[in-house]
């Protein structure tokens, strides 16, 4: 198996690392993991920093503590700096060798620190240098950032070079944007969006070329433009309404979480009952919709025979009466006519003429129809009556079922209203102001109902506006193509439009399938790592909301522990990496930091399997890399190192 790996990392005079330290990280076969163990302060996080500084020119771990003018943390090792005088400079470099089966790229960046008077420092780094192996020779790459972005793009580096301990913040405030960005980044949606934008502008140029089209066409163009704008405006309104709906639901959820945390067991019980009822209500409404559809289908099927029931009865009785009276023509055997035609001679011996033949053929046709109709009528009408009877019974059953469901819906609504009224009347003083929260909740519920109605209306209006826009476009195109030159341009416009539509549809399909796949994998990983008696269901909605639902379908995301949130973030990142097929080496600082012992062991054991065929370098503390974790990880580990820190200098030594 080949995977893109950091094959070696060289740190020269960087932070705790004095002199040249080359760390071999090349992995073998299924052993895709490296472990670097060290106590806090020994230089673990600076390994991650060294990688981001070398590749992207920034130390991700220290961003928030850095003083841009005078750094408190010099790049160059302090021991090395001790040996230079004031206003003198010491230098160092970081080098990363990257490749699949063999070294393919060497990234390097040098840096220097000036020792200023008064014990402060000023550090600077150089530009990134890159050498690429081509045909056995190492060649310098001219456009380094372009090449780097093709190999390890800067905008996704936070998904493969990160601090595990800070992952619990991932699902904190504003997480939906982070989830959305992650999903769009790994799906290469930016590529499609750029293509769509550029094609739109490209098409615009052709539209401008359609000049001098005459007054009539100009009028139609204006009408078309107005119709297009109308659709855009309505779509904007719809998007805003959807956002408002999502926000309102979040507000309701936040209130529900607070009520769930109430000190009063009665309030908690009512809240739990409400959550149960709300879920049931959603199920009942789904059933109502389904039964309504079934009833409509039955009505379409049963309708015609039911309306014709009297006519059928009358026809049948007439046929029977005529049959009894012998007034129905007898059945003439087809074989008798066939025989005559074949012999070409009448039973009287006369030869059949062409006229005779035509008469016989027409008689055969006519007789068979008349007789078959009579026979079929007698046979089929009772069958039709029977079917009508059965369809009518099914229809009645469906109607009854519908009435039952509607009754259940009323009951559940009534109970929900009662709960709400009881909570509004709750006057036991406690830390959670139940009355006020419930009042706000009712307001949000009303608002939600209004917004949903508005959304429905907007969707209908958009459909109508789109139809109008398409008609206006057709009118304009018809008028303008009267000129041959314009017809050519219109063809180009249509071609570009078709291509843009293809890209738009690809974008929608990919976002939707990536979202579903991430949801499935997150659900699988989270449950495997956390493992509780009751399964949790992890959902990723189309609005990028993550729900962790317990057995009562309530969203637990707000009440997860820091360790559980970290596992959830890991599950998301692992799913993201797995779904994207993005082949980048992972470097994770303190991957198990906040996670409790059992999930810690499972995460250490399972992560390499989740992120198949990816090199992983874990920077772990002694508390994380316990004997138990080590034993569980052993089959997957290629290199193990310990960081020994003493006297401002860290030594990287292979594990015993």
């Amino acid at each position, binding site marked *: 198996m080949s995977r893109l790996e950091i094959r070696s990392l060289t740190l020269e005079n960087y932070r705790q690392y004095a002199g040249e330290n080359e760390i071999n990280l090349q992995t073998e076969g299924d052993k895709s993991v490296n472990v670097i163990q060290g106590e806090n302060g020994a230089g673990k996080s600076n390994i991650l920093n060294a990688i981001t500084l070398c590749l992207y020119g920034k130390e991700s771990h220290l961003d928030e503590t850095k003083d841009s003018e005078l750094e408190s943390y010099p790049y160059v090792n302090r021991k090395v700096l001790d040996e230079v005088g004031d206003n003198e400079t010491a230098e160092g470099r970081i080098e990363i060798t990257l490749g699949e089966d063999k070294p393919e790229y060497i990234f390097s960046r040098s840096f220097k620190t000036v020792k200023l008077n008064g014990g402060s420092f000023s550090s600077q780094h150089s530009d990134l240098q890159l050498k690429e192996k081509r045909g056995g020779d190492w060649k310098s790459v001219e456009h380094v950032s372009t090449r780097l972005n*093709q190999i390890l793009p800067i905008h996704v580096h936070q998904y493969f070079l990160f601090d595990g301990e800070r992952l619990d913040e991932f699902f904190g405030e504003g997480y939906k944007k982070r989830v959305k960005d992650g999903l769009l980044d790994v799906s*290469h949606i*930016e590529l499609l969006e750029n293509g769509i934008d*550029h094609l739109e502008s490209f098409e615009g140029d052709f539209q401008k070329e359609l000049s001098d089209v005459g007054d009539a066409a100009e009028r139609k163009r204006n009408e078309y433009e107005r119709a297009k704008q109308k659709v855009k405006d309505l779509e904007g309104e719809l998007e805003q309404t959807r956002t408002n709906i999502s926000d309102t639901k979040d507000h309701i959820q936040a209130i529900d979480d607070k009520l769930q945390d109430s000190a009063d067991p009665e309030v908690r019980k009512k809240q739990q009952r409400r959550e149960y009822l709300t879920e049931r209500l959603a199920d009942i409404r789904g059933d109502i919709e389904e039964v309504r559809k079934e009833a409509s289908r039955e009505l379409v099927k049963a309708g015609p025979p039911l309306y014709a029931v009297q006519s059928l009865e009358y026809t049948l009785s007439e046929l029977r009466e005529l049959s009894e009276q012998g007034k129905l023509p007898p059945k003439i055997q087809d074989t008798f006519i066939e025989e005559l035609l074949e012999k070409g001679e009448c039973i009287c011996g006369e030869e059949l003429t062409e006229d005779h033949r035509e008469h016989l053929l027409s008689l055969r046709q006519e007789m068979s129809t008349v007789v078959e109709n009579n026979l079929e009528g007698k046979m089929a009408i009772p069958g039709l009556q029977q079917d009508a009877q059965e369809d009518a019974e099914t229809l009645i059953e469906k109607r009854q079922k519908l009435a039952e469901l509607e009754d259940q819906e009323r009951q559940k609504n009534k109970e929900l209203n009662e709960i709400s009224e009881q909570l509004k009347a709750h006057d036991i003083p406690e830390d959670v102001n139940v009355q006020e929260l419930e009042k706000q909740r009712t307001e949000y519920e009303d608002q939600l109902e209004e917004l949903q109605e508005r959304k429905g209306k907007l969707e209908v209006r958009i459909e109508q506006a789109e139809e109008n826009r398409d008609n206006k476009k057709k009118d304009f195109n018809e008028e303008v193509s009267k000129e041959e030159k314009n017809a050519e341009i219109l063809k*180009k416009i*249509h071609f570009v439009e078709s291509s843009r539509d293809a890209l738009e549809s*690809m974008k929608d399909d990919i976002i939707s399938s990536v979202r579903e796949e991430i949801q499935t994998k997150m659900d699988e990983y989270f449950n495997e790592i956390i493992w509780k008696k009751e399964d949790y269901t992890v959902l990723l909605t189309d609005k990028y909301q993550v729900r962790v639902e317990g057995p009562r379908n309530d969203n637990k995301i707000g009440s997860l522990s820091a360790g559980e949130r970290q596992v959830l973030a890991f599950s998301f990142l692992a799913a993201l990496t797995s779904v994207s097929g993005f082949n980048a080496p992972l470097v994770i600082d303190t991957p198990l930091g906040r996670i409790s012992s059992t999930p810690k062991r499972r995460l250490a054991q399972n992560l390499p399997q989740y992120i198949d065929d990816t090199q992983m370098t874990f920077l772990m503390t002694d508390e994380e890399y316990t004997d138990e974790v080590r034993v569980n990880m052993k089959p997957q580990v290629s290199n193990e190192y310990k960081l020994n820190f003493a006297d401002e200098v860290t030594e990287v030594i292979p594990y015993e």
Partner: protein
Amino acid sequence: MQREDVNELILQKVDEIDDNQVRNFVEDILRFERAELDKQQPHYKSDFSDYLQRYIEDWESYDQDN
């Protein structure tokens, strides 16, 4: 466009486009966008015009539709 440089899902979707001319044009567009991804404002119009010229002549769907 190096196939491994672009998400496999996108490549699958491109392959699903029935219209040969549109599919080839879209592939060219994506190849261009992939190469220019890190540029703020790539000059795309002349490249797009070349791609368009390559496929518009043989494009029959328009004549069928109109």
